């Protein structure tokens, strides 16, 4: 996932109304007009939110006759989750290594160098 795509996904889900729309689309596809009716915002405002979601590729629009039907495209969010998971794993591994490091040197020498070159080993 490119950095700009990630930015647009994160921006898109930073707004509570847009998260509500995504939640609604998890249940089932919906027409734009239906969404406008279900949310306490105008049709114009609903359209703007949907455009942001479309740009982030979180939502797909299918035109069926006169209806514009929206469906959720969860893959884009899945990619964002995967990207964040990588960083979470990175820091979890580092903290585990930090723990191993300080516990291996139980005497608590603040200076790691002194800890390995003096004391118990000699």
């Amino acid at each position, binding site marked *: 996932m490119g950095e700009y795509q990630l930015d647009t996904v994160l921006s898109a889900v930073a707004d509570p109304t847009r998260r509500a729309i995504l939640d609604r689309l998890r249940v089932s596809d919906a027409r734009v007009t239906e969404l406008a009716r279900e949310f306490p915002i105008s049709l114009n405002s609903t359209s703007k939110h949907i455009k942001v979601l479309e740009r982030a590729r979180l939502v797909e629009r299918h035109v069926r006759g006169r209806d514009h039907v929206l469906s959720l495209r969860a893959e884009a969010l899945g990619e964002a989750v995967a990207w964040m998971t990588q960083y979470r794993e990175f*820091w979890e591994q580092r*903290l585990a290594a930090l723990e191993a490091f300080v516990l291996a040197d139980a005497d608590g020498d603040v200076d*790691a160098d002194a800890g390995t070159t003096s004391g118990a080993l000699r």
Partner: protein
Amino acid sequence: MTAVVTVSRRIAASAERLFDAWLDPKSLAVWMRRDGSAPSGAVADRRVGGAFAITMHDPNGSFVHAGNYTVIDRPHTLEFTWRSAATHQTDSVVRVTFRPDGDATVVEVRHELLPDAEAVQRHTAGWTEIIDRFARTLAENGDA
């Protein structure tokens, strides 16, 4: 835009000890590295505004992680900017806090990739919420 990754671990050592292990380049070289890889190269100018660079080695090559210290408040908080290939060489912010808990210390890493701290604060709750929910959904459905 804004994404926040928070990770914490309770470690049976004093906050001072953990704080120092995080700031001392000799210690960093030992533990701030990929699992099973050679020790990292680490240099650090340990003052606010000072720069650090950690070169981690992994099977795919060597990767430099660099930044500058923004808060050094021993043994409570260490904060620094962080850039690497994974951040597309733009600055993100890592805040590490050390909270005594009985005979141990809870170390929390909060990594923010952000336009500004306020935006992150405003958006964290919603972002965390939706990530959790979607992670659950993806796990339940078995698709990604």
